[in-house]
């Protein structure tokens, strides 16, 4: 069975390579083409690829740094700095062969030492702190076979381990990655003016398909109202994650709207340790009271995909649309459950929402309207992102909150470990022995099919025990100047600027 898996991945890789090759028809662009892309927040948590945590920063570093392997838009892992790799029978040894001709932005060649340095930098725990990439504790040793090959030995087999190999490869000689931003990606880092803009430039000696647009300026636009005006005004060519009202504003302007998914699970996350949410019947009543479709109609004009449990659609391996019908809107059933739980005449609670995210705020507004029909009054508490991060997310003092949880790296284990009783980031305070038991079995199993089934069973439990009231994977609207094309949606937080190109009248 294992051999089969191996062939499958290899096949995939060759197909991807072929595919990327033949989008054809694009001439090598002249270096002076430029594009200005708006971003809502500054890269204010630094530029060191191994330490960065904000999704907005990772999205952009995707263009500058590459790992041994990298994701493509389908979510498959394709070879990057490594030309190919072999996994040993027992899944404990991974051997990577370095691709020849891969250069750093400063022109120097990528050496085995660089790769080893990068991996060890993430797995070493300096001074009692956790390693930069926690799962790397599973690595027993990394050794250089020859100038072209690296061997990594694991403590225990882990089918998801390959996903962690997307970690950025930096130069061994780079003592301060915070300021010396040198990677192997299609774009070079030029400059960063805090609170203002970030400049990138196409890297001409890129090993793969070169970027089409010469200069990329990332401009910070922090006021939602200004975004639409700036796009129409012509000072911005592209902006991601617009709301549907902003999209309706852009009708008739020189912008195409690309629609994809945000790859996150938006839900009304309930604090299971708090009265009355510790009672599963109350949680189920809430699931019955909420109608995801109505929320999607209000929040994003009907766009977006409903989810029944923690997995979002682009995580196709585990996403099961059937779970969506686990709780279809049924006010009578909700009231019945509430009566059973002893809350006939309802109760009231507060939904804490980070004020900066309009979609989550509007979702909460719709929820509070829907819950009224069941006799539950929910009032909103808007807080700043930082208060939400420390009060709600880290210290768990909240009753309910509306937020979207994304994944990096995109692995089932990373998605579901959050719900285990002692899981890292279990701000929902969800704990069920059955769930812990099934999750442990899933992690331990080495057979892919068995593991997938077990993970799916976890998702089923989450839905049955109504850990949270799952709603949707928010639509992702991207406005793109109609002179530019080639935008690709990725399942992870990544903005691939390299694939963008100007549709020159000449080469059509």
């Amino acid at each position, binding site marked *: 069975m294992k051999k089969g898996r191996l062939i499958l991945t290899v096949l995939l890789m060759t197909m991807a390579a072929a595919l990327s090759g033949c989008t054809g028809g694009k001439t090598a662009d002249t270096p002076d083409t430029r594009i200005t892309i708006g971003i809502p927040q*500054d890269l*204010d*948590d*630094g530029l060191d690829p191994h330490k960065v*945590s*904000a999704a907005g920063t990772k999205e952009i570093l995707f263009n500058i740094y590459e790992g041994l392997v990298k994701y493509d838009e389908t979510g498959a892992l394709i070879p990057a700095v490594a030309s190919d790799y072999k996994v040993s029978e027992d899944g404990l040894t991974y051997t990577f062969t370095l691709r020849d001709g891969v250069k750093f932005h400063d022109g120097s060649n990528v050496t085995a030492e660089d790769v080893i340095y990068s991996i060890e930098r993430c797995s070493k725990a300096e*001074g*009692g*702190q*956790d390693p930069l990439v926690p799962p790397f504790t599973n690595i027993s040793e990394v050794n250089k076979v020859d100038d072209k090959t690296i061997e990594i030995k694991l403590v225990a087999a882990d089918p998801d381990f390959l996903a962690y190999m997307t970690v950025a490869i930096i130069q061994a000689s780079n003592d301060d990655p*915070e300021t010396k931003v040198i990677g192997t990606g299609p774009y070079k880092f030029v400059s960063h*003016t*805090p*609170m*203002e803009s970030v400049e990138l430039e196409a890297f001409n000696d890129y090993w793969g398909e070169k970027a089409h647009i010469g200069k990329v300026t990332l*401009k*910070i*636009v*922090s*006021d939602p*109202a*200004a975004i639409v*005006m*700036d796009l*129409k*005004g*012509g*000072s*911005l060519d592209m902006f991601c994650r617009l709301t549907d009202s902003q999209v309706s504003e852009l009708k008739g302007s020189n912008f195409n709207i690309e629609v994809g998914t945000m790859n996150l699970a938006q839900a009304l996350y309930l604090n299971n340790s708090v009265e009355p949410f510790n009672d599963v019947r109350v949680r189920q009543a809430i699931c019955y009271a909420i109608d995801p479709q109505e929320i999607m109609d209000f929040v994003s004009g009907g766009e977006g995909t409903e989810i029944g449990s923690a997995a979002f659609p682009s995580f196709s391996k585990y996403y099961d649309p059937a779970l969506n019908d686990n709780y279809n809107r049924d006010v009578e059933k909700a009231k019945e459950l509430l009566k059973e739980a002893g809350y006939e005449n309802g109760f009231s609670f507060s939904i804490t929402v980070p004020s*900066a995210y309009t979609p989550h705020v509007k979702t909460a507004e719709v929820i509070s309207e829907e819950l009224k029909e069941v006799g539950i009054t929910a009032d909103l508490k808007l807080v*700043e*992102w*930082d*208060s939400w*991060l*420390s*009060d709600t*997310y*880290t210290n768990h003092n909240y009753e309910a909150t509306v937020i979207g949880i994304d994944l990096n790296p995109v692995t089932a284990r990373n998605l579901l470990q959050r719900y285990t009783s002692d899981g*890292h*980031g279990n701000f929902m305070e969800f704990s069920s022995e059955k769930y812990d038991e099934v999750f442990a079995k899933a992690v331990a199993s080495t057979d892919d099919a068995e593991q997938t089934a077990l993970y799916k069973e976890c998702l089923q439990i989450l839905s049955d025990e109504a850990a949270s009231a799952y709603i949707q994977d928010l639509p992702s609207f991207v406005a793109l100047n109609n002179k530019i094309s080639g935008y690709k949606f990725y399942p992870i937080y990544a903005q691939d600027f390299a694939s963008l190109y100007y549709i020159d009248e000449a080469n059509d």
Partner: protein
Amino acid sequence: MLLTLFGVSFLVFAAFEIIPGDPAISKLGTDATPEMIAALREQMGLNRPFIVRYFDWLGDCIRGDFGRSYSYNRTVISMIGDKLPITVTMTIISMLLVIAVSIPVALLLAKYMGSTIDRAGYISNQILMAVPSFFLGILITYIFGLTLRFFTPGGYISYRQNFAGFIGYLLAPSVAIAIPKCAMSVKLLRSAILEEWNKDYVRTAYSRGNSTMQVMYRHVLKNALIPLITFWGMAVADMIAGSIVVEQVFNIPGLGRILLTSISNRDYPVVEAIILLIAVVVIVMNLIVDILYRCIDPRISK
């Protein structure tokens, strides 16, 4: 004067003791483990008692070292220094607009006292004072930016690249800040002129054969400017606060934006430095107003 500065610095420092949210957590983001947070807090020295931290920080400030920004790990001075000229230029342009517009308009209104022009001017004055500045910003962007294409909304040009473009772009937001202040200045100047007009020395000036215009320009205007200067001194402080909102609408990376972002990032050193800076500017403005007072109004002993 120093007492006020000391008061403000204490208020700022105490404010962040109260506001929830922890800089360490905001830096580490969602996947921070409790151990990582604790270690970072230690490294930032956040665990030291409040008073110790306050006096350490105050000591550094006096020596000019405002510490490093938590999120950008650059020195606070370099960050603010880079953004200060933007907000200062905008405030200066707005101030010039206020002065350039309010004096002629007020003279006009004073000249046609009680006529329909005076009444109409008066009403429009009241309306202009009533418009919230962020609403004004939006209207200006919408009308002059999108429809009339006088400027590209959001097309901020940094003063390093092209200074003319930089000033050009700042005109629109400065107008948004200046308009309410212009209306207020016109109202104040007009009532000051009215007040001076009834004073005895005006009658003496008339008795010497001055025409109305001569009386206005040689005698009344100078004395009517005195209360206005106090207002302009205070107005600068409002303008800086006003610019925080307007910078959002016009997408200008000035002090206002840094202040708001740093507040939400709990970037204590940056916020404290900016607020101190604003307090210093306000106090310096009051000083300048006093000095102007003394040279215009000899009655106040030198």
